[in-house]
């Protein structure tokens, strides 16, 4: 059998390749592919570390947001128990960011943008919510970027998408506070009462700003892909607070204390993206 095979002229080794060598011939391209293998392995390892960190950061951010939702006043100090909780989580989150900062250095910042983006958006949501509770202001992109370790970039897209989600948190905060305290959260300006602001004013100014933002040029890439859906959710959130305030004014006194609007269905669309 093997004799027959050898007589057959078609056995693979019989041709005039330059690199021809009888018997156990290895591919001349092996060194090249070994190099590629090492490079690709490094890339996949980096990618996986980033995905994992992004997931952990997302989870920590969500927990921070849950804790912060127990705050009941604006521009006041955050109760020490809640502050301690969030600080602990924020510190852990910083560690996560630091651990992947080398993986996101230089040219790799954008290479793994899609992997880290989810974590950063959730992080944006958490720190912008905390910033709002403390100062009743929208955190700027520079302030937010400064809170991240060097090497971890905050893209404009992630910033905007995080702020879209902030509206959902503000809606929950406003409605829960209204239900438990019977009044809309806001702040008084002692010097100029005309500048008193409540959360509904803020939500409306967010909505106006978002609506004015022209993202048509983004097309199906980056921001353009998610904005449409988030815009709808954002508007719904603002309208919910408007309706709740209307309800509070019209029927507020008739409602039993502690009544909470049914939020069960609202949770999903706000959180899913």
């Amino acid at each position, binding site marked *: 059998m093997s004799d027959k095979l050898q007589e057959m002229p078609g056995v693979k080794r019989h041709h*005039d390749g330059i690199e021809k060598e009888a018997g156990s011939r290895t*591919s001349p*391209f092996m060194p*090249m592919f*070994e190099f590629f293998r090492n490079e*690709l392995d490094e890339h996949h390892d980096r990618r996986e570390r980033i995905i994992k960190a992004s997931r952990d950061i997302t989870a920590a951010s969500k927990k921070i947001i849950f804790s912060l939702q127990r705050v009941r006043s604006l521009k006041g100090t955050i109760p020490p128990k809640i502050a301690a909780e969030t600080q602990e989580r924020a510190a852990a989150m910083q560690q996560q960011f630091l651990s992947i900062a080398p993986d996101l250095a230089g040219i790799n910042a954008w290479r793994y943008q899609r992997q880290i983006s989810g974590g950063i958006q959730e992080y944006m949501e958490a720190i912008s919510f905390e910033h709002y509770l403390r100062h009743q202001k929208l955190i700027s992109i520079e302030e937010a970027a400064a809170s991240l370790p060097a090497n971890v970039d905050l893209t404009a897209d992630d910033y905007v998408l995080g702020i879209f989600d902030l509206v959902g948190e503000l809606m929950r905060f406003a409605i829960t506070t209204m239900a438990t305290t019977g009044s809309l959260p806001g702040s008084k300006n002692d010097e100029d009462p005309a500048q008193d602001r409540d959360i509904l004013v803020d939500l409306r*100014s967010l909505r106006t*700003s978002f609506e*004015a*933002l022209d993202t048509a040029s983004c097309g199906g890439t980056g921001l353009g892909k998610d904005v449409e859906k988030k815009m709808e959710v954002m508007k719904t959130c603002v309208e919910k607070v408007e309706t709740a305030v209307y309800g509070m004014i019209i029927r507020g006194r008739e409602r039993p204390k502690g009544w909470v609007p049914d939020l069960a269905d609202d949770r999903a669309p706000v959180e899913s993206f």
Partner: protein
Amino acid sequence: MANPPGMIDPRIFESLQSKIDEDAEVRDQIREVLQSLDRQGRTAQSILSRAHSTPAAHLQAVIQSAEAAIKDEVESIGKLANITSNSPYYKYNNMWTRDVQNVVFSVLFCGWLGGVGESGVATEPGKLFTIEEVGKILNVPVNLKDRDAFHITIEEYLQSLITLIEELSRLAINSVTLGDYQRPLQISQFVKDIHAGFQILNLKNDSLRRRSDSIKYNVKKIEDIVYDLSLRNLVPKAEPTAP
């Protein structure tokens, strides 16, 4: 619009808008170059397609036209590298990666046929250009890690290599039709060598993995051709000069 004492500093959304606008402008510029690169890619590939109906002895004319077409592509790649020099490479990479893969494939195929001279790299029929040689021909860096600039990635090179294999398996069939029984053997060895290389890569479940799964079918297709030839005693004897 919110006033400064309000919740939102108006500068926040102003700067966001200008960032979005800048981004759109870069995209527009890239799209413009890609339009010509796309057309040049079609031209180069249609020229190279003639290799399927041209006997090896008359390939020179095909190679020369292909080289001219590749030269145009190199120019467009240079433009692309230029307009994206101020942007992060990976931010827009997905816009052009397909077109770049097409160019790299044209270079690889033309190189395998023995072409792409005058670019400072050694040429020879049956040759596989390394990623570095491709970079030299296209006049751009490859596999950049230490700085953020336009370059050819390993993934792009490998994608083009898979396209080359698909093209060569077609060429193996058409060579037989042209009465060239030698070339399928050469292709068979070449493709097997590349296949062996792909097998040591640890590919994740991405597009490279899916496409590389198809290599084995091409290997088999080419082996079947070699089998058909050898069964009928059509395989040329090894050249006497070979040891």
